[in-house]
């Protein structure tokens, strides 16, 4: 199989940049639509987390699978999730990947290696490990990757999954986005270990901490873990340190987080940081940046219009598809 190299080329770097910017633009728009009362449901945004959302996911190859959570729509973009699909899902239209059945970011498409996760955390840690079990049984060189937040690591299923994946030497990579809070609960009320990654030693697997706002570091560590898994080296736990700079959900102003902390992390914007990186290498001029932003804005505009003009499902579809044929 053709796999990406650990040092990304110019085209790939611009791909990464595109996905980060696209994620930001989609979320900014969702936020406006939500505040304007245009969306029937809730929104959970990963703004400020684009480096790990894109960086780790981008390390996967066609044929690999990813399992995400409520906050990880952006991690699905490199797998091929489209803006039209995102907005259709939020608007509850027939054109969404769940045909209006599911809400928020709980969407997926197996053909593109995206699992449609559920709200209960971290239910898709074991599910992702199960995918990798199937790959192992069939001797396919495929890898599964599971995302969750640090809050979800308090659940027993999380620990069970790491243990089994280790014992079974499964080709799976575990990403934990430590963004400081689980809803309103700060990390120190969730755990006493300094790093989620420290827990890896309890399961006999590598545990790695990355700067969650540095997309190159996120990509490279994920890439190493993915290829180790693919070659039979077993699972890896990667903890990305970052910060949730918006509220838990659209309704939450997050008054429980000090403003200085938000300001600090807003200044650490992973997109701006990556732009500097690209500019230093002569890959991003003001003009290429503007072109990229314009292109993305058009895509988002098209997607919103597409969703708004797409039909709703027929009411009676509510009772269809409960069982497979």
């Amino acid at each position, binding site marked *: 199989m053709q796999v990406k190299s650990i040092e990304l080329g110019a085209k790939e770097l611009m791909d990464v940049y595109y996905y980060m910017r696209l994620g930001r633009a989609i979320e900014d728009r969702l936020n406006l639509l939500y505040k304007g009362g245009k969306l*029937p*449901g*809730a929104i959970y945004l990963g703004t400020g987390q684009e480096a790990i959302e894109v960086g780790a996911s981008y390390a996967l190859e066609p044929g690999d699978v990813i399992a995400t959570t409520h906050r990880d729509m952006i991690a699905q973009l490199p797998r091929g999730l489209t803006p039209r699909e995102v907005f259709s899902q939020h608007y*509850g*239209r027939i054109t969404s990947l*769940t045909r*209006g*059945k*599911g*809400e*928020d970011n*709980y969407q997926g498409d197996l053909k593109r290696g995206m699992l449609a996760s*559920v*709200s*209960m*955390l971290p239910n898709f840690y074991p599910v992702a490990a199960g995918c990798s079990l199937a790959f192992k049984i069939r001797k396919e060189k495929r890898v599964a990757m599971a995302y969750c937040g640090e*809050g*979800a690591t*308090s*659940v*027993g299923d999380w620990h069970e999954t790491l243990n089994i994946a280790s014992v079974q030497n499964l080709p799976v990579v575990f990403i934990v986005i430590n963004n400081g809070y*689980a*809803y*309103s*609960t700060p990390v120190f*009320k*969730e*755990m006493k270990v300094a790093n989620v990654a420290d827990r890896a030693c309890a399961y006999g697997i590598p545990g790695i901490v990355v700067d969650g706002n540095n997309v190159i570091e996120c990509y490279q560590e994920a890439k190493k873990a993915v290829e180790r898994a693919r070659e039979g080296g077993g699972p890896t736990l990667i903890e990305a340190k970052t910060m949730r700079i918006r509220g838990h959900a659209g309704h939450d102003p997050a008054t*429980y987080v000090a403003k200085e902390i938000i300001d600090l992390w807003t200044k650490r914007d992973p997109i701006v940081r990556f732009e500097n990186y690209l500019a230093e290498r002569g890959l991003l001029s003001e003009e290429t940046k503007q072109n990229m932003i314009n292109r993305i804005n058009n895509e988002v505009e098209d997607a919103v219009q597409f969703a708004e003009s797409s039909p*709703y*499902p*027929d*009411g*009676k*579809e*509510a*009772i269809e598809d*409960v069982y497979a044929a």
Partner: protein
Amino acid sequence: MSMQPSGDRETTFIDAISQALWEEMERDQSVFMMGEDIGIYGGAFKATKGFIEHFGPERIIDMPIAEEGFIGMAVGAALMGMRPVVEMQYADFISCGWDQIVNTAAKMHYRTREAVPMVIRGPSGAGLRAGPFHSQSPEGWFAHVPGLKVVVPGTPYDAKGLLKSAIRDNNPVIFFEHKYLYRRLKESIPTSDYTVPIGKADVEREGDDITIITYGAMLQIALEAARRAQDKGISVEVVDLRTIYPLDKETILNSIAKTSRAIMLYEDTRTLGIGAEVSAIIAEEGFEYLDGPIIRISAPDAPVPYSPPLEDYYLPSVDDVVSAIDRLSAY
């Protein structure tokens, strides 16, 4: 009928819940709460707003995401003489603690004669475009487990009185609060201490021709349908079960003895659930009263969908009830 003595105040459903919790914590030092984001944040729906400031972090305990863990801890604390109240952020997440509820809590007294006085409460129900994981009505699952009591109030008065009874009960009580009612339903309730007994249904509206048996948010649908039927000269009685387990057979059967016609209206899924049980009770013990079939109106056997037209189709409506009333009146 809800009593309305003087010293009453207009109170929303959610405030009635908060009052019950607050007053029970004041009354009994052994009552304490565990849950996610219930401290400084005051809970996802703000049921415990201001509690941590008053009762302190020893009694209002923020938990990591670990439902199975802290529900099991509630059992332990209850065995040691405490009266834990566990908040589920949404009732849907109660399934994450399923095993500790149905095996540990529910079977304790049966095996050991040791009581497990604990309450697990949380917002249930659909109608808010919250999709398959934030809209469920899981009462049927728990009503099927011997050893648990299951309560689903339909009015602010009952919410406060029943939650107090649940906290004082010596058994594990599963208490679901329909989130659609939280800020939409208001009534004048006593600011003072009172309880509503678990296991007693309530005749919310008296009538002669047809009985609607219901509970939770569907009570409002039933009352509206009854008003519409009244305009056509059909007199509908509405029985609010309030407690799903143990069921108040007597009130159900007394009502059917009077009206001879029964509609069972509920938001939980249809098959092998509360409607089936109530129908079976009427068929077994009230057969001779009946003039027509027992009609069930419920959600279909499907998850709760997100998209507005799907959810509207999914939920029982006033129109559904009115047409069932028309059908049944023909008998």
